[in-house]
């Protein structure tokens, strides 16, 4: 059989293909149906919007993480960078007296800078991504404590607005998450930067011998992850109306879990925005559902760990049988 010229339209949403490509989607549907039966309050509009809000911060972190994982790296620093970005924004407003919108920009720039430092360490310094970002995890958390002096700082209205609700029913975090989801999908599927991530993550040598600037691609990847972390940090600060020095501790692991549940491979070259979105929703739905079922937080951690392992296990089995 020679190559067929059948063109598949990437824009069209084909449910069957969506299900077969995203093993986690089936899991999410099962989870939602089970909770709908077991917890009567689960399937209400108000609660589902709540789930969206609860998912937002981790989802945005996870979208940034998707770039990194697709290109064969890992970013352990996103939780700390989120906290630092939120804190810098709040500090710029309360202590440095910048206008609210400029404080917001300062937060974003902080995330970008941290991400680029990660990128430089990995691409030019040739540090393993795990080590470089582990260092950044510590540095960013430390800087957050330095800037805050250990106390929470209140956020300007421009940032608090990120945690509010439009017209009593549409939560802004949900909106931001969907926007970032769309953006991630476009970057990964349509842009040169995104397409090179797959090549670099799949085989950096082959990418380089095909004329792809691997270093630049690495910089872009970690820069994006930093900016996305900043957005997540601002969302979190907005919801709480304050930036805390201990914000988003451990979130990087949730973000990585979401990406992996979504079917990405930690060895690089594989991963999608839709998968990550579903992965983040699985985590949020699970937390919300377990709360509804009045499972204690202690046991929740156990259940979530088991679900992460099962999700990846099923995905691996599904791929093997393909």
């Amino acid at each position, binding site marked *: 059989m020679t190559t067929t010229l059948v063109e598949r339209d*990437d824009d069209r949403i084909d449910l069957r293909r969506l299900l077969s490509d995203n093993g986690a989607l089936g899991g999410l549907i099962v989870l939602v149906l089970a909770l709908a039966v077991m917890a009567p309050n689960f399937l209400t509009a108000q609660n589902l919007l709540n789930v969206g809000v609860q998912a937002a911060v981790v989802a945005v972190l996870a979208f940034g993480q998707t770039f990194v994982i697709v290109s064969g790296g890992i970013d352990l620093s996103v939780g700390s960078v989120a906290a630092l970005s939120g804190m810098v924004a709040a500090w710029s407003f309360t202590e440095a007296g910048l206008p609210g919108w400029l404080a917001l920009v300062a937060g974003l720039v902080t995330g970008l800078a941290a991400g680029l430092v990660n990128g430089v360490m990995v691409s030019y310094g*040739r540090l393993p991504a795990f080590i470089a970002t582990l260092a950044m995890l510590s540095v960013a958390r430390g800087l957050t404590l330095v800037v805050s002096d250990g106390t929470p700082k209140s956020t300007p209205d421009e940032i608090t607005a990120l945690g509010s609700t439009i017209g009593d029913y549409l939560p802004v975090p949900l909106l931001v998450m969907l926007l970032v989801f769309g953006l991630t999908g476009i970057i990964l599927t349509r*842009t040169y930067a995104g*397409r*090179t991530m*797959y090549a670099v*993550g799949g085989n950096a040598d082959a990418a380089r*011998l095909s004329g792809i600037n691997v270093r630049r691609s690495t910089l872009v990847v970690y820069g994006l992850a930093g900016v996305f972390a900043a957005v997540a940090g601002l969302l979190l600060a907005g919801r709480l109306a304050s930036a805390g020095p201990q914000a988003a501790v451990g979130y990087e692991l949730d973000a990585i879990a979401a990406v992996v549940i979504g079917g990405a491979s930690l060895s690089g070259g594989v991963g999608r925005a839709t998968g990550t979105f579903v992965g983040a929703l699985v985590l949020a739905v699970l937390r919300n559902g377990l709360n509804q079922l009045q499972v204690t937080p202690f046991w929740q951690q156990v259940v979530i760990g088991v679900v992460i392992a099962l999700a990846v296990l099923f995905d691996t089995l599904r791929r093997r049988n393909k």
Partner: protein
Amino acid sequence: MSPQAMSTELLRAEGITKRFTGALALSDVDFDLRSGEVHVLLGENGAGKSTLVKVLAGAHSPDAGRIVVGGREVRLGSPQQAAKLGIAVIHQELTLVPDLSVAENLFLGRMPRRFGFVDRALIRRRARGMLERVGLPVDPGTPVRELGIAQQQMVEIARALDTDAKVLVLDEPTAALTETETDRLLEIMAELREQGVGLVFITHHLEEIRRIADRITVLRDGESVGVLPAGSSVDEMVRVMVGRTISEQYPRRAQEPGEILLSVSGLTRSGAFEDVSFEVRAGEVLGVAGLVGSGRTEVARAVFGVDRYDSGEVVVADRRPRPGDVRAVMRAGLGLVPEDRKGQGLVLTSSVGENLGLVTMRAATRGGFVDRKAQRVRTAAMAGRLRVKSSGQDQPVRELSGGNQQKVVIGKWLLADVRVLVLDEPTRGVDVGAKVEIYELINELTDAGHAVVLISSDLPEVIGMSDRVLVMSAGRVAGELPASEATQDAVMALAVSGSAVTPSRWSHTEGFSDSWREAERDTRRPRPAEESIAETTWEQAT
């Protein structure tokens, strides 16, 4: 079992069918193996040999068909299950732990223990016996790292036999061996046959088949197209395997050379190569031959800008790209098909289409967005032109056979319309049919006024397909021969001229081709990547 015993059926596979993402890898294949016979599986890459072996080894479960072992129908769910039934597979990639001793490797995973401690004395004693059976005269305490590839293979075979394997599957075991090593392996295979072991043997070397095969099952496009008896002629085997007679093995169509497209002068990197100069003209194929360490690949990588050089000049189509800048060299019009196809040529996690479009993606980008529709049209056309055998552009490139993968690597450069293409070992591990297709591609390129640099360890190939042959020796250009004067003896004499080896040792044909395969094996070692983010290995697919 004594050699006189009536040969019994060890294994039978009936109607085996296997699909991968839509592509039919095996279609209704029958295969059987009797004790005390060598049954050869012959076919081009992608014909389904490896898939059939994986089915027999329990690594793949067939979509249809049944497998009978020792008279009982079985389901081989895993390699472990197959091993329990006495089926052992020696893969091309060896599975020994280099830093453990030979004895420890022989008992890997089943070390005899006393009070929780490994019984070293017992291991060594039993290891001696096992090594004797395969005729390997090494001390069991030797680290495996210190053994040659052939010896390592013997260790694997000894290990398999000790687990009471009645069926031994050898997947291209001679591909990495020198001629003397191959002789030794064939001898051992013959001995095992005497002992009543059934051997399934895969090889591309038809002479070996003539020497050892009792039966030959030929696969083509996933179907069994015939079972040939022992003593079948090479011509007969090729005819059945390819489905047609190959009239000309090296169909070079020479052109009148035009302007100089690539000019390298005085290229030097201390310790690697020195004062290397050559030119290639439009419409010309420059062959590059040389032994291991002669610097062929190093020069190619330096010219392409992957590695730096100390001095010298590279001019591509009248442009002087900055040294060590791959993108500048590419823009000037040079492309490189690297020798390590999987390690450096392909993104195995991506699809056929993505790989074909890798080089041209930048050019297809407007304002940061890749015009994927246009890219897909172009890559589909290229896949069609190269007759890449796949289920479509979206098939993962990892699932393609070696020859088809190589076409994809070449295709990405053809799409970029480079003026000069450097092919480093383009036909290594590629079967007869696909080889000729790649040669035809070279002809098409030179017909269209491009220049080709063909680096190859396959001496008949480099002589048969080149207009001029540049011979490298010990990092220097030892000489250049026009096609009319490039005989194997002449090339070889130049190849050894710069090294300490005296030419007389190579005058004998056997020693000569031996050294050549030695060279081939050494260049196959992976090169450390200069700029590697992820290091991943992939299982070789069919």
